[in-house]
């Protein structure tokens, strides 16, 4: 059994130690907002926070996470879709198919946590997740909108 703290709840899960965190989150814990895209940390659809750091969970064995580490998935980002990024995403109608967007939002949330007023250069340097629908410009605009709202 593996013990994990996800979105503030401790989960005891039956998984082999080399199982990627992504699949434990999706299958054993049952939170499917975190997506499988590539399995090799290329696309970022599986991005979650581990102690506040954006992490590609498809390539992180569950054995590398301690029970004390705080894992946050998209379901735990805000209780009611009220994170400034979620509001900005809604305001600018960012998603198309939407499959990558939960990973994009998690990557952006970690960025804003570390850098509340990112420049365009900061944003493109940090936001390396793939969006096949091509929503990049709206993602960038939404991050800037959320940052400006944060500054109030």
């Amino acid at each position: 059994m593996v013990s994990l703290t996800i979105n503030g709840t401790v989960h005891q899960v039956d998984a082999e130690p080399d199982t990627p965190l992504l699949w434990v989150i999706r299958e054993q814990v049952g939170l499917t907002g975190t997506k499988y895209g590539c399995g090799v940390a290329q696309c970022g659809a599986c991005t979650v926070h581990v102690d506040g750091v954006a992490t590609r969970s498809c390539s992180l064995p569950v054995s590398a996470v301690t029970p004390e580490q705080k894992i946050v998935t998209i379901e735990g980002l805000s209780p009611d879709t009220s994170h400034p990024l979620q509001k900005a995403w809604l305001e600018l109608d960012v998603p198309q198919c939407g499959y990558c967007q939960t990973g994009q939002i998690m990557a952006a949330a970690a960025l804003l946590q570390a850098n509340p007023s990112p420049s365009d250069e900061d944003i493109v340097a940090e936001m390396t997740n793939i969006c096949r629908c091509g929503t990049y410009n709206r993602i960038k605009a939404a991050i800037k909108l959320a940052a400006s709202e944060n500054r109030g």
Partner: protein
Amino acid sequence: MTAALDVSRRSFLVGSAAAAGGLALGFNVPLTGEALAQTTPEINAWVMVRPDETVVVRIGRVEMGQGTLTGLAQLVAEELECDWSKVTTEYPTPGQNVARSRVWGNFQTAGSRGVRDSHDYMRKGGAAARQMLIQAAANGWGVPAGECTVAKGVITHSSSGRTITYGKVAEAASKLEAPKDVQLKDPKDWTIAGKPLKRLDTAEKLNGSQIYSIDVKRPGMLNAAIKACPVFGGKLKSFDAAQVQGMPGVKKVVAVGDNAVAVVADTWWRAKTALDALPIEWDGGPNAALSSESIDQMLKEGLKAEQAFVGNQAGDVKAAIAGAAKKVEAEYGFPYQHHATMEPMNATALWTNERCEVWTATQNAEAALATAVTASGLPIEKCDVYRQNLGGGFGRRATSHDYVRQAVLIAKEMPGTPVKLIWSREEDMLHGHYHPITQAKMVGALDADGNLTGLHMRISGQSILAGVNPQGLQNGRDPATFQGLNPTGTEGVLGYTIPNLLVDHAMRNPPIPPGFWRGVNNNQNALYLECFMDELAHAASKDPLEFRRKLLVNHPKHLAVLNAVAEKGGWGTPAPQGVYRGLAQHMGYGSYVAACAEVSVGDNGVLKIHRIVAATDCGHAVNPQQIAAQIEGSFAYGLTALLYGEITLKDGKVEQENFDSYQMMRMDEMPEVESIVMPSGDFWGGVGEPTIFVAAPAVLNAIFAATGKRIRSGPLTKADLRRA
């Protein structure tokens, strides 16, 4: 939108019964297969109104990011005169559609057809429902319907001032006969359609609650991972199940058809882990020696072949070229591309000897149903497909339902247990239905004044129809090969008037499964023609815009979008230091598109695409905001192909297995995109694809302006862009 019907028939019946206090205008709850078969089609299959005033618009086409659910709901709501804030959408199943004589029309969502091929019947559905709701209110009041008006779902009897809402009269309205004729609004009077409304399906995509096909959960469900023979046309020779049967979670190892093997386990990760450990022997079959080099030779031969199918012809092109003051020649190519949807192929199937149900993401649920019927061995009335949200489609989920066939075959081995099959990214890359490979030999004839007097465009390469739907060929000819190059029609007409013209196709079909890939054959046709027009203009010492304008004189809509991007893009005015511009125009899927690209190329050969100005005339613009989003996205898709996209073959197998070797454009390479939506109003064109056509040629022409180098085939990762 509300979730699609990701419920079993049983729970669907329960849910429908619970909602039965409201009305299903034209929607009868299916009780049994036999009862379904007796149900007659009703005009108002589109509209349901619940007692809480929620308006449910039921839609045959599928949402995959392109905004079609929102756009089609806008068109219905416009005619229905309901409160837009109360509108939601649902998918009927293909089983229901079949049982009701296809009352919801064609489910296929491809070719940018969502709105342009369904607007008429859906608007009529909305208008008919409005008339029935008003009639029901008028009947209740005992007044003529003509004395009643409606706005935002509230019906008013003008003289008495009485009002009642749609939700209150819905049940009575459902019992009325559908009107024979309905009058549709003039689009200039639209208040919901034509407006840049927000999408209906965004909120669920921001918090993880949106359920995609890959997220489906069924009671008692198991998971399957699969490997098919990596060589196209190869077979499964043997596998040693005993080696993995004791691994954690493993339930069963099954052969799937004659070319694949799957492991079924409690979780997908355990299934995949066991599959990776499973000893498998393949028989590569006749294509085991196939390579990109051998395919290239096949196509090169086609460029010179005597025999070719004709797509467009005028005058005497041979004589024009022979008598040219200047002859211009160039060879172009367009490599295989992969759809690479973010959500890999997957499907969940439940099979018993009485019923087969499939939960999946599909661009054509009726084709998915047909696949399930064949694979299940059950009659169609015992099968159904529940449509789930798509994590991307781009044509892949319209071309083939191989993943559905596999899921059903696996489920057949586990009667009564739902099984979810997920392809790994590697499996997805190796078993695509690829954008076909082609090359083109372009020969142009210029007279002494630099006028284009003749053009021969010889396309050599793969036909999609020959691979996907050979019945669609016309005496062996694939008409879709000539997308955007046709002499006449409403779909994709060549805009240039060239007195001596020959466009022909030497069909060469390598044994690689081809597929419809966003933009389809327009992609390479626009690249070949628009880059060569640029070459011709320079050979004639003419400005590329002026050169095109003269040839587009008979096609004002083509010309108008080109002029629009030239003006907004600043063509003919100084660009910023080091920045160069390129143009392209094309017509496809009923829409006229053009782009002006701005690029710079550093001394080190590093390309930066700064800005794209793109125009579309799609006739009617149902949601300009969503059209702008499609334009933006089409450049990411088209420029990804130009920058990186190339599927290569070695030993009969695709060499690119994941995003590390098949790269995608990311945010740092995405240009600014300024869209010009300029609907001219007398036709309905598509919007999901068309602007992709001009992405690559506009950028390639700008690269020539910047460097003096003609790049005639992607991907640019192979090109040296340093100035000569």
